């Protein structure tokens, strides 16, 4: 009973963080802030949701599988975000302050 209510709280929190991540993905001004919003919330939402699900298992093989999924996601999803941001940087995409700085230089010169 207690486990179930804790699990419900964890699941709702996880869903909330996923939602904030999605909103951030839409509302943030440039590429890097968007990747940031998506990746950070993704990690915490994964942890919360998988632990929420683990509390609902009978602590058998399913629990182990969920833990393995968690480990896999914690490895891959930040790596994907990192690769995405790094490739964008490599391709010459500037952050917002840098864009403003270059604009100012253009005006003053």
């Amino acid at each position, binding site marked *: 009973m207690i486990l179930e209510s804790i699990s419900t709280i964890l699941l709702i929190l996880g869903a909330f963080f996923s939602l904030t991540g999605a909103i951030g993905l839409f509302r943030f001004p440039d590429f890097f802030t968007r990747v940031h919003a998506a990746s950070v919330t993704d990690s915490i939402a994964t942890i919360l949701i998988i632990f929420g699900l683990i509390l609902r298992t009978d602590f058998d093989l399913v629990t182990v599988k969920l833990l393995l999924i968690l480990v896999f996601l914690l*490895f891959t999803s930040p*790596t994907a975000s990192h*690769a995405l941001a790094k490739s964008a940087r490599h391709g010459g995409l500037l952050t917002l302050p840098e864009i403003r700085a270059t604009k100012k230089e253009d005006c003053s010169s």
Partner: protein
Amino acid sequence: MTELIDLVLLGMLAITALRIIFLKDLFAVVMLFGIYSFLSALIFVNLDAVDVAFTEASVGAGISTVLMLGTLALTGRKEKTNNHTTFLPLLVVVITGAALIYGTLDMPPFGDPDNPAQQHVAPRYIQDSPQEIGLPNMVTSVLASYRGFDTLGETAVVFAAAIGVLSLLGLPKHEKAAIESGLKSHLVLRVVAKLIVPLTLLFALYVQFHGDYGPGGGFQAGVIAAAAIILYALVFGLPMATHVIQPTLLKALAAIGVLIYAGTGFASFFLGGNFLDYNVLASDPVAGQHIGIILIELGVGVTVFAAMLSIFYAFAGQAERANIQ
């Protein structure tokens, strides 16, 4: 509740499809195709068809996205502007769509137990397969044993697709002094890929041999194993990957898989049964079924792995050649 989830997923599916039609940026279209496949996989899970969902997620969202990206690397990412009139195609589409909707009027109600599909052979499979074949995963019993002919045909189709692509594009040459390519500056990516690739291969083996007991089987396992090698090729460069798994080996493997499958059929043929009748493979019919199913699933897995990977090699080899020139 499940109906609500179905409705939401179907709505998202329709929105994704519309977006795919109107977008001109082909890179985004490929990404949306991946999302489309994941949404269909979710719908299949909701319909309790986990095996199909697994296949859709691994083939539709995984491999085909990579293959389409490989094609985009060759063709460029912008759709050409279309100068044709749109009236006639629209007319054809509207008439076809109207005919299809008219056709659904005669369809039996969704999920009704009295539907012809539920009355024809399905009851026999459900009642007799535990005694006749004895596998916990009935989908594998139907796919590999009752419908062994169809699956042989599917494997042959995958094999034929690989032959088609290879005869058009050709496999990259295996070079002794390979040029360094790949993502050298991505240290994090390289380290994580080194961790992930062996685990993915292990998971592929699990899916291959656990297909008798849970969702999975040769098709999914072959695709997952191919995805592991594709990840390796993407991060460390195609020449490194062709060092590990050589194109000539892939050519042989693609044929060997089909041969294992058909050979199992002929083995049961010569032991006195029908083609692909596994009962005669062992003294006990149920044990014979198990041996036959493991063998043909292995054949499917080997062919799918070799076909998918050689198609990727063919595309990536072309892209690499285009880069050098």
